[in-house]
């Protein structure tokens, strides 16, 4: 479904992604793990088009998408719940969700998406009219995921969805990610909490300073000594 081949991305003179190759198959949950600065977020920015790649190819559903603008890429069915949530603070919850469906035209389909998101996150339904800036961190995270879901994506990319959340909320968010997958959405997940990520993922990639260091099934990765030592706390 998504295929990155030998992608190189730079920030000025900093070589952030080095010949990165990653594949995500339909229906999978794939996770990228690695420490800060390993290139996880840059990978997602390169896919969604907010960061131009220098060389390599990114194919989605067999079609080259690198070099296209974000709105063209989003239209093809990719959505991103960004790091730091980036909700629109002065817009209401409902308006935030409306923007998630910005490129969709069919009113009744959009209505269905609202129902689906409110079904996943009843809390958001309760706070429909409230400005997003007044929500708690957990609620903002739900809103960011919900907003991405409003695009009715084929591929959902989640950047650190558990960051800064209380443990019970973390568990809840991961439950929801599973549920979203069950409804037929492919998921590319970035997590600091590698334990949780490998727990729900099918496969994983370990990134280190812009390289893909390891790739294997999630089960194997959790057993791998080096991975355990570096990312799973022994």
């Amino acid at each position: 479904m998504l295929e990155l081949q030998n992608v190189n991305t730079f920030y000025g003179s900093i070589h952030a992604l080095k010949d990165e190759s990653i594949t995500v198959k339909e229906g999978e949950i794939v996770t990228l793990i690695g420490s800060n600065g390993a290139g996880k977020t840059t990978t997602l920015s390169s896919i969604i088009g907010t960061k131009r790649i220098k060389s390599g190819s990114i194919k989605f559903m067999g079609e080259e998408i690198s070099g296209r603008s974000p709105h063209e890429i989003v239209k093809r069915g990719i959505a991103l719940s960004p790091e730091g949530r980036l909700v629109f603070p002065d817009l209401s919850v409902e308006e935030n969700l409306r923007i998630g469906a910005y490129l969709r035209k069919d009113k009744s389909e959009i209505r269905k998406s609202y129902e689906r998101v409110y079904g996943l996150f009843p809390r958001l339904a309760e706070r429909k009219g409230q400005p997003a800036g007044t929500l708690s961190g957990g609620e903002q995270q739900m809103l960011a995921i919900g907003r991405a879901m409003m695009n009715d994506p084929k591929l959902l990319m989640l950047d650190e969805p558990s960051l800064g959340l209380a443990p019970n909320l973390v568990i809840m968010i991961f439950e929801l990610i599973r549920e979203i997958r069950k409804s037929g959405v492919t998921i590319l997940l970035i997590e600091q909490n590698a334990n949780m990520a490998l727990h729900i993922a099918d496969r994983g990639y370990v990134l280190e300073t812009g390289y893909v260091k390891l790739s294997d099934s999630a089960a194997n990765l959790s057993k791998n000594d080096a991975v355990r030592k570096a990312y799973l706390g022994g």
Partner: protein
Amino acid sequence: MKNRKEKNRTENVSVRLGMLFRKKKAAVPAFLLLIVLLCLLPQVTSLYIQRNLIMVGFYMVLGFSLNFVTGYIGEVSLGHAAFYAIGAFSVSLLTTDAGMGYWPAVVLSVLLCGLFGLLLAFATMRVSGTYLAILTLAFFYLVMNIIQNWEGLTHGVVGIYDIPAANIFGFAFTMKNGGYYYCILAYVLFSILITRLLIGSRFGRAMKAVREDPLAATMAGINNQTFRVIAYVLAGMLAGLAGTLYAPFCGYINYLTFTYNMCLMILVIIITGGRGTMKGVIVGSLIIAPLGEVLRGLISLFDSLPAEYLPDPEQWRFVIYGLIMVVMMRLRPQGILGGKSRLDYRMPAGLDKKEGNG
């Protein structure tokens, strides 16, 4: 012990002086030769050329003045001609209505301009970027509006006639004796000297730090407000100094002598040459100040055409200034001579990206 101190001090002085001509050994004689040549110039050129050279000199001093603010602090001032006007009006009124001698009047006027610089620095303390540019423009309009309307002081729209010629020890300056030429040449050299001293000083290093990374500079304990104020005061005084010579040079001034076009021209000079560089100011004023005359010359080549078909060089000059600004920013924002590596202007943190938590 005492001897050593003494020796250190002399060494320091020589080091300081050396910094004025830091580059190469050969630069000193070359520089002196250039000055000698510049001194001889009025003896061999026509009055027309000399007049243009004097105008270039005025704009060079104004360019150095604006460079303190725009080049070293990174703030666009659109009201710089206000200081020029204050200097000119002040010296004219002091030498005519108040009957004061020329040089005491110059000193007082320059101090007054420094005071206005201080005032402007404080009034714009909390803003930067376009806000600041607009405030400086408002400052210009404010000053000109007062000059135009305060009849009791500035003679209102009539302006000031018969401004006595500038003089030194009773020797009156004229175009013919080259007095104005040598005086403005001295002011240009003085501007170079003061800029050099400033860059080499703690101020210069601090300014550089603030420009490269304001936040880090603040962390390092550099109080950029202090330096900002110093820069504004110096800028005001230098532009005022130019004004004190410009008024007797013209002999007559009124509120229309100093225009927004003048403000922009000074800005265009340092943009063309390169913000924050001395060579930039010099080259910029050499290119920009004579542009009007050059255009006039070009257009007069077509004098076989009826006059109504010929473009007005004055207006087209301004259009060209505008184009220079736009094109330079697009192709070479650091100016012809500006270095490439400089990070010079940034939005204050938090503005370009608002926090998600609002």
